[in-house]
């Protein structure tokens, strides 16, 4: 390995299929099976040090590496886009290390690794959505101690979370959580859906399998297909999936999550789809917005 030539490194020669050694993959695979069997519960796993920094998707990368087969077609998105630098970097990593086909099309992908978004196009049976998770513990910002939060999950003691959300309402008139909005999975575990905007929360109920990997925090969790996922709320303040009240300037979509783009220094701005594939597909089908 030490004599690995640069060409080899570029081609992935000298490394195992999908980078991780088989023993590591078995360990992750066992954790994944338990995660699926206990939806929403965070399974501890012996996360490995990856060749990219913690916080940059090491959990997602390990889950993807443990799941990929040579037949897969991989899509990687960050902020909904395929061409953001970290998405490019991770996609290249797997193209090199697993030799898998890659795509930017949501519909063509069998495995999608994502950071911060759920694709707009509904996912189907046979697809796996792998989330990169920074802080898997939904109770962490209320209680920093792992020993405490573990006990709270064991006892299904989620009062603290409701108190926090209700304090928001008292102060602001609304729940002041706009992303990483906590959900309850199949009536049991409160779960952090990773920092997706709450607009994406309803999409957590899907026909696809959803896997969550937190490398630095050494946790894996899952939502099987067709699992009940409820965003926490109150009768008098029901959950609302919000987005900018505008249409995409490129494709005219009014149902997709929008990025705000600052166009000049005098307050000019426009809104475009965060999901670049969704937007491009619509434009190819000749849907146009004001700016196209």
């Amino acid at each position: 390995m030490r004599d690995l030539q640069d060409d080899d490194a570029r081609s992935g020669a000298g490394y195992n299929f999908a980078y991780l050694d088989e023993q590591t993959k078995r360990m992750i695979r066992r954790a994944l099976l338990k995660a699926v069997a206990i939806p929403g519960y965070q399974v501890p796993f012996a996360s490995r040090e990856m060749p990219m920094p913690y916080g940059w998707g090491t959990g997602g990368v390990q889950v993807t590496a443990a799941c990929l087969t040579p037949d897969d077609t991989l899509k990687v998105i960050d902020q909904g886009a395929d061409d953001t630098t970290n998405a490019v970097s991770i996609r290249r990593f797997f193209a090199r290390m697993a030799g898998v086909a890659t795509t930017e099309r949501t519909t063509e992908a069998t495995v999608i690794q994502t950071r911060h978004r759920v694709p707009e196009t509904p996912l189907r049976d046979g697809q796996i959505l792998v989330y990169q998770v920074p802080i898997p513990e939904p109770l962490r910002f209320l209680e920093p101690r792992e020993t405490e939060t573990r006990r709270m999950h064991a006892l299904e003691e989620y009062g603290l979370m409701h108190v926090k959300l209700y304090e928001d309402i008292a102060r602001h008139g609304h729940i002041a959580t706009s992303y990483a909005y906590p959900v309850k999975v199949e009536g049991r575990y409160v779960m952090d859906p990773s920092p997706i905007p709450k607009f994406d929360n309803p999409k957590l109920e899907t026909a696809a399998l959803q896997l969550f990997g937190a490398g630095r925090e050494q946790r894996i969790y899952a939502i099987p297909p067709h699992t009940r996922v409820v965003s926490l709320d109150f009768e008098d303040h029901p959950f609302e999936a919000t987005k900018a009240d505008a249409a995409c300037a490129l494709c005219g979509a009014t149902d997709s999550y929008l990025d705000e783009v600052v166009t000049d220094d005098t307050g000019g701005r426009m809104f475009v789809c965060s999901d670049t594939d969704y937007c491009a597909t619509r434009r190819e089908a000749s849907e146009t917005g004001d700016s196209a």
Partner: protein
Amino acid sequence: MRQDALSGGFADPPREAALVFRAALDAMSRPGRIVQVTGARGPAPLSPAAAALMLTCCDAETPLFLAPGHDGPALRRWVAFHLGCPLVPRGEAHFALGTWEALGPLDAFPVGTPDYPDRSATLIVERDGLSASGTRLTGPGIDGAAHLDLPDPAALAANAARFPLGVDLFLTAGDRLAALPRSTRLEVS
């Protein structure tokens, strides 16, 4: 006999194990679904599906219980050569292999703790056949309802009732397998 112990592994482990895992993951995330896994075989009565599953999931880090009927010199040698699992009694098993009858009552296996419900056994239950009929299943992974022919629905319903504790099952027959996680609710008639 020697021959048996050394053969039957994957020809191309990284790729074959990946395909078997994906099939197993598919089965576990869609209870009732029957999938095909190939590429492995072990000494009788081990089914090719169970052999493939064990090559994919088990190693020196996973204590294994071999139920009577499966436990024997030939399979022990195969396990020692291909997996390296320590063989343990029911109560210490991460994985257990055998027929439903031989495995015995589910209570004997680790079901996890309230703090760590994942520290529970996975049972590989060898069957004569698998059929998507019989017990009605609902819950995570299932769009509406699914059906699976299960050995003892009442015992499995009791396992599901302990959620989030409980054991998880793979059912294997020939080169096919299905799964029943603890999260699946069973309709026992």
